[in-house]
């Protein structure tokens, strides 16, 4: 369950890094904006939850495509400047939400149909959680299919492996970058939207997610989509099991130490493409 949030969150981070060599420090804020988007559409504008989620994903994705065009493009592939610029975006979004929506916790209710529990093979699960899992799996599979079956997806993978060669083969890097950041941020927004339904929404919800997201893409290999998915599950399991048996602080330590060890033993990550 937790792993699926991680998958949705880290996939975007990984896509964006893979294609643009940009580490998005504001990715936690994308997640937060997605959650606030759903809150805006359902609680304030009284729309259907599903419609709200789709609208939120579209709105956040579009916002980031525009931001990428005007702010990130000049620095593409340059580590320190992009880190700084996305840090600036982090501050801007966090403070904007703090001013407009306030610092108190908000929550979004899932629609009536999804409330209640089901028994599945002896375990009782709430329908909300099953719904979250289904959406997570559907989005992940959709992304994998998109990357492997469509022309746009293949050009994205080409750009990840070697941007220069891809450009020589006629791949429009600008368009691919827009697509990558749009999809990546829409996925994170979906993660945020689902989290908004299960937990609370506040302007600082993105922070812990960001650190975990970094660890996941490091373990999985920067820019590798399958690696990211595998690593998200590994981190999710370590986190759940260690939290239950040892406590959340030890879980955090284990996860971060795991990242350092993986980096030292295999610097390109579990399924990484190249070492940079």
């Amino acid at each position, binding site marked *: 369950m937790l792993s699926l949030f991680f998958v949705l969150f880290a996939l975007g981070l990984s896509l964006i890094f893979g294609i643009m060599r940009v580490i998005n420090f504001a990715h936690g804020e994308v997640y937060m904006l997605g959650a606030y988007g759903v809150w805006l559409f359902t609680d304030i504008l009284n729309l259907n939850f599903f419609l709200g989620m789709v609208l939120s994903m579209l709105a956040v994705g579009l916002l980031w495509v525009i931001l990428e065009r005007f702010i990130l493009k000049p620095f593409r592939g340059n580590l*320190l400047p992009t880190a700084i610029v996305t840090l*600036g975006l982090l501050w801007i979004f966090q*403070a904007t939400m703090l001013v407009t929506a306030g610092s108190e916790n908000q929550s979004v209710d899932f629609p009536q149909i999804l409330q209640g529990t089901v028994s599945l093979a002896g375990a009782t699960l709430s329908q909300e959680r099953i719904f979250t899992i289904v959406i997570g799996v559907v989005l992940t599979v959709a992304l994998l299919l998109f990357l492997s079956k469509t022309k746009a997806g293949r050009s994205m993978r080409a750009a990840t492996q070697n941007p220069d060669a891809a450009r020589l083969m006629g791949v429009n890097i600008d368009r691919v970058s827009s697509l990558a950041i749009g999809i990546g941020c829409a996925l994170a927004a979906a993660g945020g939207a689902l989290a908004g339904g299960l937990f609370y929404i506040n302007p600082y919800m993105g922070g812990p997610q960001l650190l975990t997201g970094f660890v996941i893409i490091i373990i999985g290999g920067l820019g590798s989509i399958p690696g990211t998915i595998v690593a998200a599950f590994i981190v999710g399991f370590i986190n759940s099991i260690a939290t239950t048996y040892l406590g959340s602080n030890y879980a955090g330590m284990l996860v*971060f130490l795991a990242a350092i060890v993986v*980096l030292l033993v295999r610097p390109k990550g579990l399924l990484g493409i190249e070492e940079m």
Partner: protein
Amino acid sequence: MRPVQSGLKVITARRFNSKLVITIVILILLFLIPTFVTSSYHLRITINMLYMIMLVAGFRLALSAGVFSMAPQAFFGIGAYTLALLVTRLNWNWWLSALLAGVVAAACAAIVGRILLRLKGIFFAISTLAFASVLILIWKTFSFFGGHSGIFGIPDPDPIFGFEFGSLVSYFYLALVLAVITMLVMYRIEKSRYGFTLRCIGPNADLARSTGVNVMLYSITAFCIGCFFAGIAGAFFASFLGSIQPHAFEFNVLMLILLYAVIGGVYSVWGPIYGVVIMTGITTGLTYIPNYDPKIGPIILGVTLIVVMMRFPNGISFLLESIPGWLRKASRKKENEPYVNTSS
């Protein structure tokens, strides 16, 4: 011949003195700050600026050699915890403990650097971030480090040369002396052969290695020196606040350090000073606007950061240091080209 020679000597002597005189005047002005700044609120802000300058200068030194560490706040914390533990648990002398705080931070940096500097660029950055996160969790978890509530009752520095510590003004002078020493060391490093080599490693480590530079050694020593000053700053910080909590060394400190370093300009020794002074000036100045909502502060910081990055990627120092050049150029133009009114 004689008068000409003596004239030359006078000129060179005057040049040397003018630089020295300016430095001394600035130092005297700095030492007089407490007579102008009397409110404790502003003095506190000034002290914050001084130890931030130490942190940012250390970070910049490592960055100039291409070591993009995301853990300066962790070494700041190591310094603070070392001092706090030595002084409160073992009743050690404050000055010895503060020195040891710097040494411990530098030693940790040497170990971390030796292990993690095998990784390059973003991998090193994120692994240091992971190191910092582990460290904060350790401080939060173990009661030896005081857990979530941290360590309390850290005493003021011991009196030295009959100078008693405890008042805000005395802390200001301590911070000022530490920051001035830091900047002098940074300046000496920048002008030395060692600093030159660091600046060669920064843009292209492979090229530097091909010319026979021991890149690993230089990177680690730069990282250690930077972290030594971060540790000393941490020791000062612990005593200045009187108590330390793990959350004082979290991600947001790193964000401030990055902000100051980049706004100031990472290619100049004086960049950290410009960055810290200008950004603190802006954030403090904003609070004087009537009906100002402090929540808007980060938005203004963020916008400033992005605009500076897009317009002046080399930071404010690049702008400031190119002003003398422009003036010289402008005056030379005036001398050479007579003013012609083209509009008529």
